[in-house]
């Protein structure tokens, strides 16, 4: 069954084309990676899937419904790139807010808070004010907020940016668990090495999808030895001539 269907999606900001004629079909229970360098249009796609940005043209169906319907919101867990936490509140209080906004059953709230905090290994910091936590811990809190209401679909925008390798490994382990629970996970990243954790990937460049499929297949089709080479081959000419930065190698931001 298809969790996300995108047809002919375009987004313009004035003269700038951020997303250009994008077609996507993401299956239920899949970990789908949207890869590409900074400025490729990944965040814009995620924002349109969440309903925070209005497409210039095209169609978006999420979990079988047109995007933007408030009834859909309860089924989506969104983690913005900027972490989006209330810095002056405690971890618990941040979770409490979203428990109210997602209308969680009151007797489930405490259980779920404990579960998600255990999931991100932050149980002992639940009473800490967010701005007193380290950057890595804040990333974990942000992920916990996205998971609290047990969403069917997770849209995670660059969840591993600025995260140390150990935590990145732990995050991907978590995403694997979520997949095993039957959830659909869509992740944007510009770390090419992270593609190996995904069932399928979509390589984006200048708002367009230049390749899609299981990581190994994308590499093979491009006649490359790894994903980075595949990406550069796929965008060769256009990207290099324009001086576009290649996607990041392992642990290095582009």
């Amino acid at each position, binding site marked *: 069954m298809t969790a996300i269907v995108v047809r002919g999606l375009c987004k313009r900001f004035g003269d700038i084309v951020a997303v250009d004629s994008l077609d996507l079909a993401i299956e239920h229970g899949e970990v789908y990676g949207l890869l590409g360098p900074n400025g490729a249009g990944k965040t814009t796609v995620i924002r349109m899937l969440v309903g925070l*940005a209005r497409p210039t043209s095209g169609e978006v169906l999420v979990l079988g419904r047109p995007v933007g319907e408030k009834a859909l919101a309860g089924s989506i867990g969104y983690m913005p790139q900027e972490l989006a936490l*209330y810095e002056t*509140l405690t971890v618990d209080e941040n979770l409490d807010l979203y428990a109210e906004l997602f209308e969680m059953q009151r007797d489930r709230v405490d259980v779920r808070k404990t579960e998600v905090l255990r999931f991100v290994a932050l149980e002992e910091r639940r009473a800490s004010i967010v701005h007193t936590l380290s950057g890595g811990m804040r990333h974990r809190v942000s992920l916990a907020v996205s998971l609290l209401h047990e969403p069917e679909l997770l849209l995670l925008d660059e969840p591993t940016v600025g995260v140390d390798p150990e935590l990145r490994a732990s995050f991907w382990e978590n995403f694997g668990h979520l997949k095993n629970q039957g959830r659909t996970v869509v992740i944007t990243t510009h770390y090419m090495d992270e593609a190996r954790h995904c069932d399928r990937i979509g390589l984006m460049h200048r708002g367009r999808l230049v390749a899609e499929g299981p990581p190994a297949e994308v590499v093979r089709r491009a006649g490359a030895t790894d994903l980075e080479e595949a990406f550069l081959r796929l965008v060769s000419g256009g990207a290099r001539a324009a001086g576009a930065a290649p996607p990041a190698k392992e642990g290095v931001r582009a």
Partner: protein
Amino acid sequence: MRSRHVLGVTRRVFRGFKHDRRALALLLIAPILAMTVFGIAFAGEITNVDVIVVNEDTGFVPLPGMPTVKVSEMFVDNLDAKVLNIERMTDLDAAVKKVRDGDSWAVIHFNANFTSAIMGGNSTVVEVRADKSNAQVYAAIVTQMKDAVEKTMEERKLSLPVSFDVSNAVYGKDAEFSDFLIPGVITFAIFLLTTLLTLLTFTTERVGRTLDRVLSTPATELEIVLGYALAFGVIGTFQAIVLVSYGVVAFHILIEGSLLLAFLITALLAMTSQALGILLSSAAHTEAQAVQMLPVIILPVFLLSGIFWPLEAMPSWLRPFSYALPPTWAAKGLRNIMIRGWGMAEVWPQVVALVVFLFLFLALATLSLRRKQ
């Protein structure tokens, strides 16, 4: 609309203040500080104004052998020594020089025939050579002189051609300038602090993407705005309670009407102000830009709302702009309640105006959140 969403946002705002003591202090201590400064600096009476009396009046002897009567001296005795600091001089030119040198504010000069002219039923003149560079000081001197004339004539059983009886005031019999000023200070403090805090809070929410995250939940834009409105309505009322209590204790302000009605007005103003803060935040991309908007908020309200001086002092063509500002109505409503003792039957136009502003700004704030990129 779900109350759970609204109350969730409201609780979030309160919890934020619980942990952010500086913001809490700004909300409570800043208005008290503002009232103290304005109350002391502007509401105090003018005292100790240096003036010089040059009295050349030779007086009048009613019958031979009787003491000389000098009405000018009676007049000087009736000047309030608290307000005017009187120095005596005999040389008029030297006295005027002191004023010219900035050592005194005015010379009050009585001519040689002053008393005899009065006794003879003729008119006479008290010459005042004043430094009018400070209109308020000058007004205090003139008021003192008028009062002294009336008092002296009354004592001498002499009648003025026209006199005014202002003892039976319709409203504000015991009102002082502070009674006019403090409702304005309350209005200004609540408006400014609420707008400022919401503007900064919402700009941070936009920049930090917490707003995106909240908007990605089932909560609607209106519920989010109402959650904030409820929080700031409560905070505004609490600020008003603190400020009115402080005004009563520190400045003995008049409270002739219903305090509940006054608090209703401050709550409406606070909610309108927070909606304005949300609306303005949509034009700011960074916190620094939000701070740059402050003069745009403060100046029109400070100058046009009738908060610190009456609307009647403004040119008539400017007054429509005044009525386009919510604080104008709030200050007027508070004064009507606190000084005139009016109830809902009389202050409903101000309440209705504030409700209209509230709905308008709530709608615009909601639309500003709904406007997607």
